[in-house]
């Protein structure tokens, strides 16, 4: 219970700090962010865009780990955990794409320009969509779990290429691409001190939120299945 209150306070602080802290030319107080020419007020989207993109990869990774566990032990609970992780991953993927498109509009001029990183988040969206489509086409529980686990693992071997390799080697608009002189504001720690603090607090807060949502999600699916089986057996 305590950590839920702590999480609420953390995310509330991050949201207020991320949105309300003013951006001034020369930050003098601890609650002021520096001005980045060209971005101005819109730099604050970094506090929300990067954590959602980070979480979609974490969710996919967890979904694959539980798929692997299922293939080894054939315990259907692992399949449920994989499914709950993928559901959240899909939501975060959509959020990352939308926040990215919004940022692209005022930073690069158009919502979508097939920049390599935009292409890779789109590919991730396709992988999630295909996974759900495969699941809904199979009736039998064990077969559904087995086939979707195999597909998840095959798709997972292509993910490192999309997320870590392709956007950094190809020329593109996104920070950290081959055009940039550095590896982007996050990896290279180029942000101002208090921005960095808020950013990492946001990352930590969202990650804890994800694990909590995933935990509640898979437990509720397990309970629902237990209830269904009770009803059938009368």
């Amino acid at each position: 219970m305590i950590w839920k209150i702590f999480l609420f306070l953390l995310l509330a602080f991050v949201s207020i700090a991320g949105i309300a802290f003013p951006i001034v030319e020369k930050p003098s107080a601890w609650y002021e962010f520096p001005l980045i020419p060209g971005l101005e007020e819109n730099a604050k989207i970094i506090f929300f865009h990067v954590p959602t993109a980070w979480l979609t990869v974490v969710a996919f990774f967890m979904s694959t780990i539980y798929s692997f566990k299922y293939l080894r032990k054939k315990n259907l609970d692992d399949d449920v955990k994989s499914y709950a992780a993928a559901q959240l991953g899909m939501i975060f993927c959509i959020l990352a794409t939308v926040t990215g498109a919004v940022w692209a509009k005022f930073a690069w001029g158009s919502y979508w320009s097939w920049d390599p990183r935009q292409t890779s988040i789109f590919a991730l969206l396709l992988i999630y969509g295909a996974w759900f489509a495969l699941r809904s086409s199979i009736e039998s529980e064990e077969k559904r779990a087995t086939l979707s686990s195999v597909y998840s693992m095959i798709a997972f071997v292509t993910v490192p290429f999309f997320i870590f390799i392709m956007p950094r080697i190809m020329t593109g608009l996104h920070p950290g691409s081959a055009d940039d002189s550095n590896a982007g504001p996050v990896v290279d720690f180029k942000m101002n001190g208090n921005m960095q603090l808020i950013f990492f607090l946001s990352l930590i807060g969202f990650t804890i939120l994800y694990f909590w949502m995933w935990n509640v999600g898979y437990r509720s699916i397990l309970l629902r299945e237990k209830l269904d089986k009770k009803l059938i057996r009368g």
Partner: protein
Amino acid sequence: MNSKSYSLFLKDFKSELRTRYAINALAMFIIVAISVILFSVGNEKISPSLTGGLFWVVIFFTAMSGLSRAFVSEEERGTSLTLQLIAAPSTVFLGKLLFNIILVFAMNTIIAVLYSAIFEAFIIQNFVLFLVSFVLGNIGLAVSSTIIAAIIAKAGAKGTLYPVLSFPILLPLILTSVQLTLFSLDGISFERAKFELAIVVSYDIIMLTASFMLFDFIWKE
């Protein structure tokens, strides 16, 4: 194991030659696809880079049309249980993979020849690069398509789900192969294309390894 896979491949190959169903259907599909592109383009002049991209569009959809037959035909004819009994999973996979590789090479050679003949802008300047990327790309296409075909054959979803599942898996290969084709059309030297070639080679090896390891789980009921 090798001779068993080869006999499995030979069985598929001979039955295919006997009925010639897949070959005819795929040849017609290639002609139809290229005709659709010709009609949609009309009298517009298309640049070499556009023909390079369209080349891979036709390759992808022809693969989606023809490569699932390896496993789906076994399910439809009811012979997949027999296959499970007589051979180890990796043997079956290798046999089907050999068949699909031959099919992919045959289809893509036809597509490449037709493309060179029909589109004047499709002139390959660096032929060695084209050949190498052609061979590597075909192997990658065959490997990924075969494992996804195995998945959908067991899922009973057949036709509509196959492109949906294959496209995200094939995307790294298609992106890099389109780049390599454009390089060979522009006459870029082999040296400068080494990075993309390395990506395709690693894709092939990774997908081959992953497919062999995961096929056991799909195949055993």
